[in-house]
């Protein structure tokens, strides 16, 4: 495959555009799911959509993508609000409710699928593609549909930005200000269900929740602003779609959905390691630097206590005297000497004037912090 194929090959262009839009809407709405601590809801919704797909086919007898989408949407919504109902009305915790509905609906969906496969009807083949997704079946119509839903959800997001942000941060408080939190909840949940259902054809029931969560989780690492997080998540999602499609198109027999999910996962891994504020790498570097600095400070103040009992602060002391204090190492002493806080002569150290002033200020500073 050539790079130019992307722009000339109609099918490839359609698929790339479709997966990009799908990634964007999933990133956008996934941010809400992640921040509401409903990460697993996406998984439950996508699995809950399966019986809807099968029933839509059984009832209408045709394998029209739109009909199947509506079936998936209805069954996804039923599953979602069932979960919410269980959490609200019983003593079951949300993870139990999610797991229960997920497996119940998925099991029922699989049952229907096997039933359909045994039907004497040539038409039934291909419904199982919704399990793992098949991006190749995307047509221009599907892409338009995704674009419209993305546009509408963007509009709703902008319109109710203030209310949704409030709901995410503090739902009870939102209620006390007079906002209808039920309406807001249904609004955002419905759009999440919509995004998931739209992705089923491409990514499939099993992997869909990763599309929702991965871009959002990655984006959270880079920013402390909700707006930027949502924009970043959309960008990460869109790029996952584009890269995933490109990789799978350049290698034969690589299924697009899983590759997209893996690319999204790569975004997560890179973000968790390399993001400057929250990333593991920089956190470890900061941690070590702090610890080294504390070692230096502690050693220096210890020396200060010894030195201040002498008239001449630069009176030499043997290094061994530091032994009953655990924090010092050869390296700290060299570092201190480099900074001209101490002088080392043979097995003796002596505090310099500069070191004494520094130690005094550290000592006073720490005393103040503890007040």
């Amino acid at each position, binding site marked *: 495959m050539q790079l130019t194929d992307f722009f000339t090959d109609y099918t490839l262009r359609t698929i790339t555009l479709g997966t990009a839009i799908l990634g964007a809407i999933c990133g956008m709405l996934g941010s809400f799911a992640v921040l509401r601590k409903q990460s697993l809801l996406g998984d439950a919704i996508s699995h809950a959509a399966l019986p809807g797909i099968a029933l839509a086919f059984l009832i209408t007898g045709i394998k029209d993508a739109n009909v199947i989408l509506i079936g998936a949407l209805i069954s996804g919504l039923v599953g979602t609000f069932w979960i919410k109902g269980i959490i609200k009305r019983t003593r079951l915790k949300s993870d139990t409710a999610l797991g229960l509905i997920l497996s119940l609906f998925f099991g029922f969906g699989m049952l229907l699928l096997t039933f359909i496969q045994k039907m004497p009807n040539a038409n039934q083949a291909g419904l199982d593609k919704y399990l793992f997704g098949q991006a190749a079946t995307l047509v221009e119509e599907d892409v338009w549909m995704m674009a419209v839903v993305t546009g509408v959800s963007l509009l709703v997001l902008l319109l109710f930005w203030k209310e949704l942000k409030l709901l995410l941060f503090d739902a009870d408080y939102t*209620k006390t200000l007079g906002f209808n939190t039920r309406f807001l909840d249904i609004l955002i949940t419905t759009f999440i269900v919509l995004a998931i259902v739209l992705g089923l054809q491409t990514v499939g029931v099993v992997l869909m929740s990763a599309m929702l969560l991965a871009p959002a989780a990655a984006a959270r690492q880079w920013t*402390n602003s909700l707006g930027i997080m949502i924009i970043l998540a959309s960008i990460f999602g869109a790029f996952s779609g584009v890269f995933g499609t490109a990789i799978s198109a350049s290698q034969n027999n690589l299924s697009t959905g899983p590759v997209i999910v893996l690319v999204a996962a790569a975004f997560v891994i890179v973000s968790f390691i390399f993001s400057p504020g929250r990333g593991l790498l920089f956190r470890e570097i900061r941690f070590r630097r702090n610890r080294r600095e504390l070692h230096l400070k502690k050693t220096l103040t210890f020396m200060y206590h010894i030195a201040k009992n002498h008239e001449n602060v630069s009176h030499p002391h043997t290094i061994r005297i530091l032994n009953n204090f655990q924090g010092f190492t050869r390296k700290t002493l060299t570092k201190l000497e480099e900074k001209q806080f101490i002088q080392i002569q043979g097995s003796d150290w002596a505090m310099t004037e500069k070191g004494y002033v520094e130690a005094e200020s550290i000592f006073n500073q720490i005393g103040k912090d503890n007040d």
Partner: protein
Amino acid sequence: MNNSLPAIQIDDLTVAYDYKPVLWDIDLVIPEGVLMAIVGPNGAGKSTLIKAILGIIKPIAGTVQVFGEPYKKQVDKVAYVPQKGSVDWDFPTTALDVVMMGTYGSLGWIKRPGQKEKKASLEALEKVGMLEFKSRQISQLSGGQQQRIFLARALVQNAEIYLMDEPFQGVDATTEKAIINILKELRQAGKTLIVVHHDLQTVPEYFDWVTFLNVKGIASGPVKDIFNDDNLTKTYGINYKVAVNN
């Protein structure tokens, strides 16, 4: 405000999660302009009472009236300071942004906060001594600072009644003094303050009104009249002195 009406009137309020009643048949009249503590042991239903007043929790029976009307019609007159632990402080937003949320109610649906709301929020931040932290990510604030942010958010609501759920929990002595001074200022301005409070020793110093609660309402009135051993024993049982000393 209409002087003939109490700030809050509660009649026959009963609230239950599952089978066990958390609040049982509460009758309570809170006059306008008091600085009131709600005291009672753990599980007495103090937070629940506040949430029931605010309509966050639906009662099984009974009514709550705010200046003679249901809460729903008076949302703009009531401000709420939830427990600090009720939200996720790792949420991606700044201190100023959280305080601005206090203006959302008066803005109503869809309308965005503008310069006027921002100015009010900055003033509230200054009042609680947090102006220099306005752009700080909220997870980087200390517990006491987070509590002040919540207080500032309630202040911008510019309400008549303030309901606060343990505003002194986990704050140091300096912050506690700063908060109580603001509360006293609000009372001076004629506002009504209802505070869930745990430290019985500071009740006479901080508050002028007190409600004893232990699932049922034990007593409610001026601190100088009813804050006594008798009511403490009725509320906390015989071991109330242990409670006081903790």
